[in-house]
Each structure stands twice: as C-alpha cells, then as structure tokens.
C-alpha cells in the first residue's frame, strides 16, 4: 500500500510539473513607431537591413532607414514614384520597384544618401492610369527576381502618350481592369543574366509576392472584377490566373479581345487559387505574405505565411500542404486588434522574431505608419495544421485539448462548405452553401490531433470550420481564432 501511495505521489508530481511546462497563452504586444516630422507615412514597402535597421519606402517617394535602438530615422533616397516594393541587397544598396521601373538605388560615396539610380528593368508598358501599381521584387535561391504589374482600372483612363505598344483589345466593354500596354496583369521573371521572362498572367491587383524555401512563388490578389474573393495563388510558369485582359500579351495571341471569350473557356484555362481568403470572414484585401522562418516565439508555425490585411486590424495565417502535387491549404486569423491598425500593407520579420508592419491608405481603406509586433509571450493555442485526408480533415493543435470525450469536441466544431462564381462581376457572394455533417471524429491519444470524417469532400469548395469553446488542457487557454477555412483545390 505504501508503495502504491508513493508511486501515485511521484506520478502526480511528474504530471503536475508537465502541466506546468505548457505555458499559458499570452498576447502579442504591438508598438507604435514614432514617424519623422513632415513625413506622410504611407508605407509602400519595407525590409530589414543586414545591420539590423529597418528600411522603409513611402508613397511620396522617400526611402528612410530606422534604427530601433536609438529611435532615429535617416533619409536614404527620395523622388521615387510610388515605390511599392523593395529588396535589400546590402546596407548601402536596395532594389526598388516603382511605377516606371525596377531600380537599383545605391549610396556609393558613403554619405548615407543614395546617389546612383540604375534602371534595372523598364520593359513593361504604362498608360498613366492611377491603378498601374508595381510589386516585388522577390528573389529566389538562384538569384532570379520576380515582379508583378497591376492592371489598369476602368475607374481611370489612358493618357494621350503611353509607354509601350498599345493593344486596345486588352480592354473589355464592361467596367473592369484592363491591359492595353505590355504585361499589365503579369508576373515577370528577371534572370541574373538579364533575361526577361514573362512568367504568368491573369492578375488584377497582385499586391503581395513571396517565395518559399523551395522557390515556389505565391502571389495574393484582390477581390474585384473576375475575382470572387481574394486569393493566394501558387504561381507557375505560363499559368493564367483569371483576369482576362492580360492574355493579349501572351506570345502568339490571336484570339482577339479576351473579354469576349466564353467564361467557361476562360475558367478551363485558369489556374485556381491555392487558398481563398473568404470575403467578409477572413480578409477583404490581403497584401504581402512573409514566411515564418526559425522564429522562436512562432516555432509552431514554421514554414507558414503571415499575410497583411488592409480592411481590418488583422494579420492572417496561411497553412499550406501538398495534395497530389497541388499546393493548397487553409487560412485563419492570426492577430486581431491588440492595437494593430488597419491598412497592413507590408510585413518583414526582424532578426529577433518580431514583425514590422507598415500601413497605408492612399485613398483606400487603411491607415498610415509603422508598428512592431512582438510575439514573445504568445504560446499560442491554435490550429497548427489542417490537412486533407481521404475521409475528411485532420486538425493538429499547438496544445492538447482539455475535452476528452468525442461528444464534447463534436459540440464545439461546426463545418460548412461553399464556393463562388467565376464571372466578370465585381466579387461574388458565397454560393452552394451548406452545412457539412461530421460523421465521425477520432481524438488522438495525445489530444493534439483530431481526425474528422465527412460524408464527402468536394473539389472546388471552401470548407469553413468554426471552433467554439475549445480549451487547452486544464482549461488554461481558450481558442481565440475560431475560424479556419480550407480551400479544396485537389482531393486525395
């Protein structure tokens, strides 16, 4: 008897200390950065320098460096034309994507101010339309650069003098984005040898590019004409992603005005999103994705993306996987509120794992300035992964659940599915919406994994999971980000 008591005491002491090893969920800390006097702080791009400082480009043409240790800002360059992307080469040199060109901006005489502005690539067209923004560059492991070109908006016009060849058939009769000068609505690849490769077409407003560690390119786009709900595309060479105007710049194009091609044909040509950000639920205008890499506080999300959102005080998390060779996955809110502003346009991780966020509005819904988000005490209780199986979905959590009984977990989970129209109209409501019953649920012994069995899985549907009243073990944490939406592009 004494042995048994002794044994139980040891066991409960061990389990008590194990329970204490799981820290309680914390909150992110959002710091407002004080901006320099006289600056209209519409953040167009930002990145981190090797010396640890932040470098930020603003819509009115300034590029400034920020030292977080001294809270000091320093001019680097000015006069640029809406520099919506930058890539750091070294402490004295950056590549900037501005409306007219990709530019190498260098300080060669060491006075801290850039003095060389070298045109790297300007071989695309410009109509002077206000919506012809430019994005990137992102660089892959072979030193190829990728940039993206916004199409023009029918909310604006075409200047009497354009740059580049004009193809009027790149504009439809109805109000929609159009592409009447070279490569608007395209992603362009620039090789280190200077070769220019028109890479993929069909983009509307591709305000976010990222390359993963396997050199796979991902691009976000914005809900609007031909884009039912904002997507993240996995972009491959010669892919067409849906907005018809840019098709006129395809090599050998001879099919006239692409807006007059049947929607079914265009639909059969297009490469569908890797994941959709359901409109009015997850994000209405997603921006730049950044990958979580060797981040201590966010180690549970290694390899996943954090994406900015313009319309809300929100950052979104994207979890991708490969199903039969196709990249697809799920989205869920990552950070809501906690002092984060709207207009989250540009993101960059600092060396210490905190996240720089730059905001803009520029006449749209948004805000202005720079914030820094620290995740040091986060210890998140979240869905870490959502994976497609033959039977349904597997959910993996960052911490074990407190609920042990199947019925208790089932009561906390609901699932629905829907999809969207592909059409010329601006956006689409959810269609074919239905509740999805969960036929069975298996809880893994470690209580961190659930296997859901559904009656069927249908390609081309968004499966939206809502998790309510789920607690981590010993009820220390509640699930805060309750909605996870998986886009089934391919089934097993």
């Amino acid at each position, binding site marked *: 008897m004494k042995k048994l008591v002794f044994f139980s005491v040891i066991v409960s002491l061990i389990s008590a200390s194990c329970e204490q090893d799981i820290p309680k969920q914390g909150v992110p800390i959002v710091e407002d950065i004080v901006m320099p006097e006289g600056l209209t702080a519409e953040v167009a791009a930002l990145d981190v320098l090797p010396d640890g400082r932040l470098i930020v480009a603003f819509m*009115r*043409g300034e590029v400034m460096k920020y030292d977080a240790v001294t809270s000091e800002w320093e001019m680097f360059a000015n006069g640029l034309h809406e520099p919506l992307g930058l890539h750091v080469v070294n402490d004295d040199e950056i590549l900037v994507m501005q409306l007219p060109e990709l530019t190498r901006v260098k300080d060669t005489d060491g006075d801290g101010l850039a003095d060389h502005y070298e045109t790297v690539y300007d071989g695309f067209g410009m109509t002077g339309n*206000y919506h012809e923004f430019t994005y990137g560059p992102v660089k892959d492991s072979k030193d190829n650069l990728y940039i993206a070109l916004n199409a023009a*908006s029918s909310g604006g016009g075409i200047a009497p003098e354009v740059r580049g060849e004009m193809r009027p058939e790149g504009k439809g009769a109805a*109000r929609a984005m159009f592409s009447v000068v070279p490569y608007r609505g395209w992603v362009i690849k620039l090789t280190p040898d200077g070769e220019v490769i028109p890479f993929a077409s069909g983009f509307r407003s591709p305000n976010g590019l990222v390359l993963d560690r396997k050199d796979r390119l991902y691009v976000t786009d914005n809900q609007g004409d031909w884009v039912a709900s904002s997507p993240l595309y996995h972009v491959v060479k010669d892919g067409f992603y849906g907005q018809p105007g840019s098709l006129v710049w395809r090599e050998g194009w001879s099919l006239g005005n692409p807006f007059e091609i049947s929607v079914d044909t265009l639909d059969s040509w297009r490469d569908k999103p890797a994941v959709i950000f359901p409109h009015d639920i997850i994000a209405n205008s997603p921006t730049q994705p950044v990958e979580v890499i060797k981040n201590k506080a966010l180690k549970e999300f290694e390899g996943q993306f954090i994406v900015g959102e313009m319309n809300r005080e929100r950052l979104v998390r994207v979890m991708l996987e490969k199903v039969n060779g196709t990249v697809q996955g799920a989205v869920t809110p990552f950070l809501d509120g906690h002092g984060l502003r709207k207009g989250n346009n540009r993101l960059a991780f600092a060396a210490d794992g905190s996240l720089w966020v730059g905001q803009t509005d520029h006449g749209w819904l948004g805000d202005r300035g720079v914030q820094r988000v620290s995740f040091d005490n986060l210890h998140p209780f979240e869905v870490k992964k959502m994976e497609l199986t033959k039977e349904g979905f597997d959910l993996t959590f960052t911490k074990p659940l407190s609920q042990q009984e199947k019925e208790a977990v089932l009561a906390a989970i609901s699932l629905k599915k829907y999809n969207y129209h592909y059409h010329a109209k*601006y956006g689409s409501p*959810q269609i074919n919406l239905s509740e999805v019953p969960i036929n069975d649920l298996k809880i893994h012994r470690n209580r961190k994994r659930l296997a859901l069995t559904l009656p069927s899985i249908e390609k081309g549907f968004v499966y939206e999971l809502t998790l309510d009243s789920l607690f981590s073990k010993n009820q220390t944490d509640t699930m805060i980000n309750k909605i996870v939406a998986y886009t089934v592009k391919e089934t097993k």
Partner: protein
Amino acid sequence: MNIIATFRDVITCLTRQSSRVYLLVSVTFFVHLSTYAAVNPTEIKIGVNPGLQYDVPRFQVKPGQKVKIIFSNTDDMDHNLLIVSPGARKKVVEAAAALGADGIRKNYTPAISEVLWSTPIVHGAQSSELVFTAPSVEGVYPYVCTLPGHGNIMYGAMYVTSSGEMPPIEEDMHIPEVRRTRSPARKIHHPYDLTPPYYYRTYIEGASPAAIIVRLSDHLSYCWDAGVSRFRFAWHGGFVDNTEIWRGHRDAKAEILGEVFYRELKNQPIRIGHNSDASKVQFKGYKIIDGGYLEFHYKIGDNDVFETIKEVKGGIGVVRIFRVPKLDKNIFFHFTKTDGVEHSYKGAKIQGDFLELSPKEGAEFMIEVKLSD
C-alpha cells in the same frame, strides 16, 4: 315637399353626424395647399470622392419634404447609401458588419428599424435613387456606406430642419473630421529639405508616364522623360502642385505652377552618325552629382550618353551638358525652333535647328537654351 327644409335637414344631418368628416376634408384641403411646394421632390446628387468619402458631406431638407437622392458611384469599388435614425450610424455599421458572409447577399443592409431607407450595393459607374418623404421629426439623420470598414469614415448628415440651419462646417460633429477643415494651409510635404535642385518621378502632362521633373531653382524647372530618354520641356515660375497626385485612388497629374517656355517636339533630337534610321534608345538611370543635379545616362545604339541639365547663369534657361565617352562618329543635336528662345553653343547662337559636332567636339559639349533678352 319643402326643398329648403329638406336642404336644411341635409346640412344639419351632415354637419352634425359627419361634422368630423367635413372638418377633416377642409383641413386636408388647406394642408394640401400649404404643402404644394413639397410635391415636387428636392433632388440631391451624391457621388463618391477618393478616400472613401461621399462628395456631399451634408445637406438639409424640410420636415415632410419629398426628397430624391441620386447616388452615383463614381468610384472603382462597391458602395451603398443607407439613411438611418438620428444617432444610429455606429449601431447600423456594426449590425452590417455582423452580417458576415451574408452581407454581400443582403446588400450589407441589416434588417433593423434604425435603417430608414437604403440603396442596394452600387457598383462603380452605376447609380441608384432613393425617393422618400423626409421625416416629420426634425433632427440629424446620418447617411452611411455599410460596406465592411467603410462606415467609420464614409458618411454624411441629412439635416431635417424647418429653419434650414446647420452648424458651421468646422464644428459639425455629424460629418467626417476630414470634411470639417477648410483648405489646409501650406504644410510640410517631406521630411527632407526642399532646397533646389530636387525632383520627383511623376505623371505630368507633356511627357510619357515615366517622367522625371526637376526643380533647378526657385523659378526654373524642367521635365525629363525616362520613357523616351530625352529632355521634354522647361518652365519658369513655380514648380508643381502634387495635391491631386497624392490624394490617390484617381487619375491625376502633377500640376505645373509656372509657364512652359520650351518644348522639344522632335522625336529623335540626338543622332549619332549619318544613319537616319532610328537607333534604339535605352534609359539607364541617373546619378546625383555635385550640387544635387541629376546626370542622366542613356544609350543611343551602342553609345553611352550622359546628360546633365542645370540652370544658366544670367537669364532664364537651362544648360545641357553632354558627355559621349566613346564617340567615334559625328553627333547631331536637333532642337525645335521656338519664338523667344535661343539655343547657343560656345557663346554663339545656333543658326537653323541643329548642330553637327565632330567626334572630338562631341565627346563633351554644352548647349544653352535661354529666353532671348
């Protein structure tokens, strides 16, 4: 039968039993007369400004007045217009946000009593009309766009008032803050010193969309076109007003605040060699050199050309300084003959409209473009 008696009986009957009806009929008749003016509805046209604003921040109508609002969505994204009960804007905006995924199907219009009149979602370039009778109860009735996120900044105020009075616009808390201020006084535009020379890459009339405008002094500026690698025009007076450019979300150009005195109208003003075929011209960028001037670098065929433009000393004009390091042919500098403008080389006016230089001369040369005295 006594007709008068019968008639009197009828009147008595009418006035006694139906006196209320009679009273109602006559009162109604008089009220109708006095509201005759309200039969023709007041038309209010409301459009959309960039930056998520209705272009009309507020208007006033009389109680009971017939109103027609013509809402034209002049923007490039969806909007709607809801008129709501006094003080209810935030509640309606929150209720619309709570519609979640149902919002788009329901025109982002919550089914609550505070919503008085509403348009559906209106796409860009479309319009929608609201015809209604203004409430009889005076007050400030907000109108608002309930697309997600819009309602906190995109709204206005319908004053229902018989006096027609509204508070001064600077003090009107029922309209967005950005509409309360008068035109802002000249303010600081950049966190750096705007001592000339300084420049912008921008959209401006008279050049391709890849223009670079440079302010050389407080009275002299020029435009370089990186789309075609050449000097386009010069002006004297002020520099530019970028207000419309910086507003965003709408086509805009930098507005010249001076007078253009020279425009280069020739497509290929600089030629190398006698080959009249257009050589491929490529813009390579620029350096900021001593004094803050821009030295442009472009290629004509295989030749690198470096061009710096500065202000002349004495007079109004620019001096164009060329370097063509590996020049091995004659170089031809063409220009557009312009009344009141003189081109000179080495102090002498250039006759005709071009200058031919040998490879030795053309390796480095300067041309002045000045207003004649």
